[in-house]
């Protein structure tokens, strides 16, 4: 006499869902990075009396692939503010990309925890 075991598995869907959830977290990383970089520039320019409107406006980010992204300024002279200069105008360093990345990384981790689970539940119809 035989007995039966029949499973209905949604695990295959879960793999795709994890991918989708991480993609949402990457979106969050870009959004947070751009916001933080702009926020730091705004704060620092007012402290120092700079007018960095063009630099500020050039800060943007985007996905380069499903799980790849970038953010940062596009104006060529941005590095002079990020790293500072000794010669020329003598610009005091005011890092804004690196601190923004740290905040974005934290936001990514926080988002990934919830977005992956959310996507799995959505796909699995839970």
């Amino acid at each position, binding site marked *: 006499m035989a007995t039966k075991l029949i499973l209905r598995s949604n695990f295959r869907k879960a793999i795709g869902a994890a991918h989708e959830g991480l993609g949402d977290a990457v979106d969050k990383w870009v959004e947070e990075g751009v916001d933080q970089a702009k926020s730091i520039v705004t704060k620092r320019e007012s402290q120092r009396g700079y007018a960095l409107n063009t630099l500020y406006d050039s800060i943007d980010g985007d996905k380069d692939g499903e799980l790849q992204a970038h953010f940062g300024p596009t104006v060529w002279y941005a590095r002079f503010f990020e*790293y500072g200069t000794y*010669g020329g105008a*003598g610009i005091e*360093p005011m890092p804004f990309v690196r601190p923004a990345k740290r905040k974005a990384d934290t936001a990514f981790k926080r988002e990934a925890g919830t977005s992956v689970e959310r996507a799995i539940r959505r796909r699995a119809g839970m």
Partner: protein
Amino acid sequence: MTLLNEAAETDQGLEDYLKDDASLTSMVTGIWSTFIGRKSEGMPIVRFFQVETDDLMTIMGNRVWTEIVYQVEAIDRGTDTTAARAISQRVDQLLHLLRGETFGHVLVEEVYRRAPLFRRELEGDQPYIYAGAEYVFHVSTP
């Protein structure tokens, strides 16, 4: 827990530490933790500044670990990288010896390099060389 500003203590401690090294000071005309603006004085120099800071761990309101990221680099005028490279190498040696040292009430738990940095820039019609790295400091207040 000692209540103090770990970033400020570390900044001063690092400046004193680097200035105490005869080998390094013989290679440079100055070691600066503050912005010195446009100067015509001698080169090369060492300049460092905080890139970012974070309290890595806090338990029941007590700070356990503070992370401070520094950009430390040799700056030289011209196109010859010899001096800048030698200085950044010495700085690297010194910073890796910092583990277990104290800056006042701050204990340096560890120092490691996060990323090397090297740039050639044309600033005000003069070529400048920047050679150094980003260093991560983990400090605590025992």
